[in-house]
């Protein structure tokens, strides 16, 4: 690539980045607007129960999106997250049926998640296969295994305290208890991504794997672990899902992967890797859930929601570019690193 094209492309990217850096700000603004609008005009929205329902919907997506962000920052992608959710759920049910105490069953499921992620990582980082193709494969494989494990059955008789624990709220705040560990995990991932050497390595890999290698970063090893992380988080999502709906079955979370990817991209993470941050992603996740609740309460159908999601996705990439085209001449190209 010639220096001039490079530098121009980069100048464009850089401004884009400085806008994208503020894209999560834009998201927060939209989110606030939606919230106020809903509180103002939608009946029954301004209730603590809304918070409960909303956050309960957010949790599984947030879990998967958080880890997926790391994967995408390194320039890879993991489409098997929803299938891992399903398989974990199925296995959890099967283990419970065959008499395992839930504590152990859950531990095993998290382990399973790690293994499934490791398989993805092995194919992608180890054999150097394109992650898009690999995880389309494991998307089918893992979902298939879920059916193998549980078949047409649905395991439903989990102990009452567990199923209620999943949806119980902190006092009468309406905030589900389950949100707390999720916030903890989000913090963990956020710090890792934005304030540790590992995070720096992830961004370097996403932008130029060769240079990363020449700088002593073990590219494949790092990528491998991002996939493991993705697997673990998906399995946690699967466990939560099972208890929240008090039902373990093979088709849990079917087709959820696109929603998760959409959330991450909407959060301003570049599909090519090397750019984006977790705040934006989480903002996007909450925004999508809020939109869903609002539209449902307004008795709008799923189609409207999908229309909005689609349009937002497109805007998320078009707007920064347009802004940058406008600014390009005026503003000096002073650039921030990928982190805000």
């Amino acid at each position: 690539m010639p220096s001039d094209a490079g530098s121009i492309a980069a100048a464009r990217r850089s401004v884009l980045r400085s806008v994208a850096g503020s894209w999560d700000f834009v998201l927060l603004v939209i989110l606030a607007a939606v919230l106020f609008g809903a509180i103002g005009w939608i009946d029954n929205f301004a209730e603590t129960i809304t918070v409960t329902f909303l956050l309960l919907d957010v949790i599984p997506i947030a879990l998967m999106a958080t880890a997926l962000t790391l994967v995408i920052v390194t320039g890879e992608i993991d489409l098997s997250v929803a299938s891992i959710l399903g398989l974990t759920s199925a296995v959890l049910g099967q283990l419970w049926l065959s008499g395992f105490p839930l504590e152990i069953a859950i531990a095993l499921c998290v382990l399973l998640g790690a293994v499934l992620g490791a398989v993805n990582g092995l194919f992608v980082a180890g054999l150097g296969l394109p992650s898009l193709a690999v995880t389309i494969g494991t998307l089918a494989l893992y979902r298939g295994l879920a059916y193998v494990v549980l078949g047409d059955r649905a395991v439903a008789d989990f102990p009452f305290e567990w199923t209620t624990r999943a949806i119980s709220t902190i006092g009468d705040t309406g905030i589900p208890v389950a949100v707390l560990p999720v916030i903890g995990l989000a913090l963990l991932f956020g710090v890792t991504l934005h304030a540790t050497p590992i995070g720096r390595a992830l961004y370097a890999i996403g932008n130029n794997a060769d240079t990363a290698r020449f700088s002593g970063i073990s590219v494949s090893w790092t990528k491998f672990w991002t996939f493991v992380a993705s697997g673990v988080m998906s399995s946690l999502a699967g466990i939560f899902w099972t208890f929240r709906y008090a039902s373990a079955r093979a088709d849990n979370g079917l087709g959820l992967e696109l929603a998760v990817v959409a959330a991450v991209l909407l959060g301003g993470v570049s599909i090519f890797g090397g750019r984006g941050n977790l705040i934006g992603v989480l903002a996007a996740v909450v925004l999508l859930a809020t939109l869903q609740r609002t539209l449902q309460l307004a008795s709008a159908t799923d189609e409207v929601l999908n229309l909005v999601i689609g349009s937002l996705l497109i805007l998320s990439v078009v707007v920064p570019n347009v802004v940058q085209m406008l600014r390009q001449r005026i503003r000096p190209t002073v650039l921030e690193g990928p982190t805000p």
Partner: protein
Amino acid sequence: MATRAAGDSNTTPILALHDVHKAFGAIRALRGVDLELFAGEAHGLVGENGAGKSTLVKSLAGADRPDEGVVLLDGEPVELAGPAAARDAGIAVIYQEPTLFPDLSVAENIFMGRQPLKRLRRIDTREMHRRCAALFARLGVSLDPQRPARGLSIADQQLVEIAKALSFDARVLIMDEPTAALSGAEVDRLFTVVRGLCESGAAVLFVSHRLDEVFALCQRITVLRDGAWVSTDATSDVSPDDLIRRMVGREVSTLYPKQPTQPGDPVLDVRGLSRTGVFDDVSFSVRRGEIVALAGLVGAGRSEVVRAVFGVDRYDAGSVLVDGKRLPPGRPAAAMRAGLALVPEDRRQQGLVMELSVERNTNLTRRWDLSRLGLLNRRRERSSAQEWTSRLRVKSAGVTAAVSTLSGGNQQKVVLAKWLATRPQVLIVDEPTRGIDVGTKAEVHRLLSELAGEGVAVLMVSSELPEVLGMADRVLVMHEGRLTRELDADATDDEAVMYAATGHSEGDR
């Protein structure tokens, strides 16, 4: 100060720039530059890194639209809408960095968009390969036209670029540091071809940091400094020192200030390193405070060797020892821990993350040193980056500027900064001064010898003989993947090195 080209002062220039301005945000890359290219002349363009040479080239190539000023073709103002337009106007360009399609064959790379056609506007592949082979023959390049471009060494890429430019049989040929990666033999062949073009009435613009080449090829030389036109003279009217003074704007001390040091005990020990098809049974050692040059023709396999030593490439046999301890093969991290550093050959692909800021790049090798309990501290990152970039006098809009916005030479400095920051005990540099101006070059050399003075062992791959002879204590010569000779720098001359590099033995002299 400006003088006209000898002779044809009445004819109008084929291509001319008048009062061209170009700014990138805050940086004013070009400030009112004038330039005239006459039929049959080879015109040299020199200047420090960041002087604006490449930017000027881009304006001529239609790759960049100047903010102000006009481009005149045969005296007529033209609006070069884009590279295609320039091409159609008969302007061929060799950019500073190769612009190849790795997935396509070398021949397709050369003829992309201009492939010879047969009936129904179908591509005539056979004809294309024939022409490509012809071009290579003309340049004396031994490359299979059907070979994919991926995996070509920088040198080979540069040669393909040249072939591409020649395939236009253009009226204007613009070359932005085409020889940076080439060594003697190729350069000579290139010049013969270029001279041929000039005789057939083409105009050539030749950008280079190698003044000897500029003097060898060009009739007139233009100097840029900080984006401004300084002078245009007939080659006969100026001396290298004048040029250097004008480029740098100050006196430049002697170019190769290598102080003699007392080499200590061996720290890097390479034993019987081999990799099928690339290099074979390479053994040498480098001692503390010593600068060892790895010379040879391009394609000799020097980069492969040093890459293997550092652990980014595999090797099939042999071993690498630092302080007598064997390095695990294929583990750059381990090499770094052992105190090795490698400034790679290709700064864009291997040295830098172009999209990231100068700061992120400089700190990439020291992520863990800069962190406490695994957490990074912004202030420390910032100050460390500033310290090293200022040490190397990197010219940029600040440490938060993306390295892609730096000029070639300044990018190279960032790579050096990134590695010097690790305070290595063995520093391996592959073509450290490629595309770097005389001023900076001197700095780099001073740096290297300072490091040697501090007891760092330096292994330097270089295709520039003066550099090799000026800097090195010992010279190792490679030929087709084998170490052919070891020479004592003081007791040898460029001839001896060339002989060894071209595979001749002492006897042939």
